[in-house]
């Protein structure tokens, strides 16, 4: 699946997007955040406070218990500050 990062999540990880295949036991958005946080220092820093991280699956906001199965694109970002 394609994973995208925005704002300071993107800056901390150092990339805007990548294609990843998480293991089968990573089933929810929250579990994906936990798995990503263990991929290295930059990821650990980006996801150090999981409760502030927002997520979207295929361009729709989701909560951390959303299932990732079938997702084409998952995005992680801080709370929005548009408008």
């Amino acid at each position, binding site marked *: 699946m394609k994973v995208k990062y*925005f*704002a300071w999540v993107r800056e901390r990880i150092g990339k805007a997007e990548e294609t990843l295949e998480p293991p089968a036991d990573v089933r929810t958005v929250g579990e994906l955040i936990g798995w990503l946080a263990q991929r290295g220092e930059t990821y650990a820093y980006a996801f150090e406070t999981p409760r502030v991280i927002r997520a979207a699956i295929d361009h729709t906001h989701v909560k951390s218990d959303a299932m990732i199965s079938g997702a084409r694109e998952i995005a992680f970002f*801080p709370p*929005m500050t*548009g*408008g």
Partner: protein
Amino acid sequence: MAANATIRIQQADFDVGHEIAALTKGRIDIGAVVSFSGICRGSENGEPIAALTLEHYPDMAEAEIKRHADEAISRWPLSGLTVIHRVGRIVPGENIVLVLAASAHRQAAFEAAEFLMDYLKANAPFWKREESTAGTSWIEAHDHDDAAAARWTKS
């Protein structure tokens, strides 16, 4: 006639008068037009800033704004709706965002414009970074924006 929403995400500035004219020209069914212009201020939390840079999630931003514009059109009897959100670097005094809502009567136009602004502030995938003499930093979200957006949730 059911309204169509005009939605644009762009780097370029916009002209409020021009957008109002585009929405109302030749129409005699519109009695009320509410416009909201969001403008870059010269300070943030009391500290002067040199500029804002707006980042967004392009595909999601367009889809989400469209979905909320359609929701506004289904909830209020609108004759027209325009949403323009700028991205990129914006200096103090420049426009950031525009919402126009047109209706036969004023209440629908006011409510639809407020609904869309509350949505854009709290839930549209845009992020502001500020430049100041201290460097650059990401602007933090406000709890009161979440509360403002939540008041439109149908119970």
